[in-house]
């Protein structure tokens, strides 16, 4: 194994890790806001990728330009999902935890079925785009442009989110609603509105991730399944309730995955991720940066 192989693997791992972070941040945001784990998160990503694909296929819109449109569409979608489903799930008096898990899990199945119904199960790809297939080579280390842009978007999204939560009125309202939903009602903040916006925002972030993923990944109704578990582990590893944790968790997951593949047979590379998760929570039961 040469130094070049190791550096290349770690570089690829870091880029992928930042993307995992971007995929997971929506999940982390929603969880932090209202303790709900969205089991349809992978399907949100799938819908975002299809949206990007169709904008490309029918209107020849490049995924990079499509990204804001897809994010906006997913924002609406996320808010609607909250209002139609999750709102009732969190109201459940009995077994709130299981109701949330299984209502979003059921939603995931429906979304897959609908995707198969309307889009057929065929595999799609964005065949040419500004970023697709381009790659930068520095001293023998290759950095694919789509992943590089994805990593930058991820960093920017986290920075914006950090600013948004800590410096804006709405962010403070989100934070306050999270702390004590009952008290905010007294000061005239509509809890449902805040939660709906939170879901919209979380989904919009997945939308961004999906638009970028569409450049270099294949698209089909079950594509979300490949990413869902990694997204949950990323969030939990970083610590629930911490948006920054998802960022750090993503990087750790990416690097661990890449280095495991250097040591073990690549078919076992996820074992490294899972083992690190277990190790972290056995030592720190709240993940790396978790507050709850």
């Amino acid at each position, binding site marked *: 194994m040469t130094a070049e192989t190791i550096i290349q693997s770690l570089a690829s791992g870091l880029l992928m890790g930042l993307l995992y972070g971007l995929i997971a941040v929506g999940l982390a945001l929603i969880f932090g806001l209202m303790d709900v784990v969205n089991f349809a998160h992978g399907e949100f990503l799938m819908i975002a990728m299809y949206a990007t694909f169709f904008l490309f296929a029918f209107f020849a819109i490049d995924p990079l330009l499509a990204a804001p449109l897809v994010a906006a569409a997913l924002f609406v979608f996320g808010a609607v999902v909250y209002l139609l489903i999750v709102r009732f*799930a969190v109201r459940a008096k*009995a077994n709130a935890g*299981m109701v949330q898990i299984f209502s979003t899990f059921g939603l995931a*199945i429906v979304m897959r079925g609908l995707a198969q119904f309307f889009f057929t199960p065929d595999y799609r790809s964005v065949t040419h785009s500004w970023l697709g297939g381009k790659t930068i080579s520095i001293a023998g280390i290759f950095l694919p442009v789509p992943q590089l842009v994805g990593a930058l978007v991820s960093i920017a999204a986290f920075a914006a989110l950090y600013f948004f939560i800590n410096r804006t009125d709405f962010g403070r309202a989100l934070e306050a609603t999270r702390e004590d939903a009952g008290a905010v009602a007294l000061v005239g903040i509509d809890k449902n509105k805040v939660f709906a916006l939170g879901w919209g925002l979380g989904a919009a972030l997945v939308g961004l991730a999906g638009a970028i993923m569409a450049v270099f990944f294949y698209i089909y109704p079950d594509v979300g399944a490949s990413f869902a*578990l990694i997204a*949950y582990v990323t969030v939990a590893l970083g610590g629930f309730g911490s948006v920054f944790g998802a960022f750090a968790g993503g990087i750790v997951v990416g690097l661990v995955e890449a280095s495991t593949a250097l040591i073990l*047979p690549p078919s076992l590379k996820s074992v490294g991720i899972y083992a690190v998760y*277990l190790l972290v929570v056995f030592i720190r039961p709240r993940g790396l940066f978790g507050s709850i």
Partner: protein
Amino acid sequence: MDMPFATRRRRDLIVAACLAVIAALVPLFVKDVYVQNIMVLTLMYAALSQSWNILSGYCGQISLGHALYFGLGAYTTAILFTKFGVLPWFGMLGGGLISAVIAMALGYPCFRLRGHYFVIATIVIAEIALLLFQNWNWAGAALGIDIPVRHDSWLNFQFTRSKLPYFYFALALACVAWLVTWWLEDSKWGYWWRAVKDNPDAAESLGVVVFNSKMGAAAVSAFLTAVGGSFYAQFVSYIDPESVMGFQFSLLMALPAVLGGIGTLWGPVLGAVILIPLTELTRSFIGGSGRGVDLIVYGTLIVLISLARPEGLVGLFSRRRKAMVR
């Protein structure tokens, strides 16, 4: 108007006995193997979900990694039978014991985790096992294990065409799982778990004893699940890592209990009786279209039931029971 606890328990037992007898008579009238197959699966899922319910429902430790124990049961039986000629009955016992021990070994560090940290830990542990089996050449790796068909006998627990032996075994397993749950409800453990659920702080004062009871629940739950896995291996006579240890399977095991009523005596049975025939029939009669209609129907039902009846479908049957469900 609550019935006294003891009265309710006696009535539950009588109802269960009647249902078991009725169920045992059904195959005398239903000869169609396809329908019999659905009944076997329904009973198997009722048993699995009941076992899952002990740890996740009553004890409150939500596991989405029970496929691990199911798979261990299936693999132990299949490996012992194909490689060493050990009868499946011993494999079943062995698989159950191995699973119980592993469940306790995993429970020791995992029970310190709370909420979703625990749930995700159970998922990734099962995934690790899945990947290891997928790459374990001696155990067949991805090729799985094809259990050779011998002559029909209870000794080999193999029956070429008849579903009845499988049906009665699954029925017995479901009854055992139900009885264990019924017994636990009124045990010391059952009281502690209820106390902890009602008042998490009580957990602190009960400390060690509650921890030990959780280990016990994990062991019992894993043992029964593994027996279910052994049964599956004999019933299907082919296993591979993806079909016995996949994450989907962990969800499928939990689903009947969740929809029927988590942490209730009758929830898993009711959930399985409704859900499994529904899944099978939707796939058989609308799944051939290739358009995912079966998924749409199935998923929509899960969403609707879990939203409309968060306490589970058992709530529909008895108002009084609701008081017991917490």
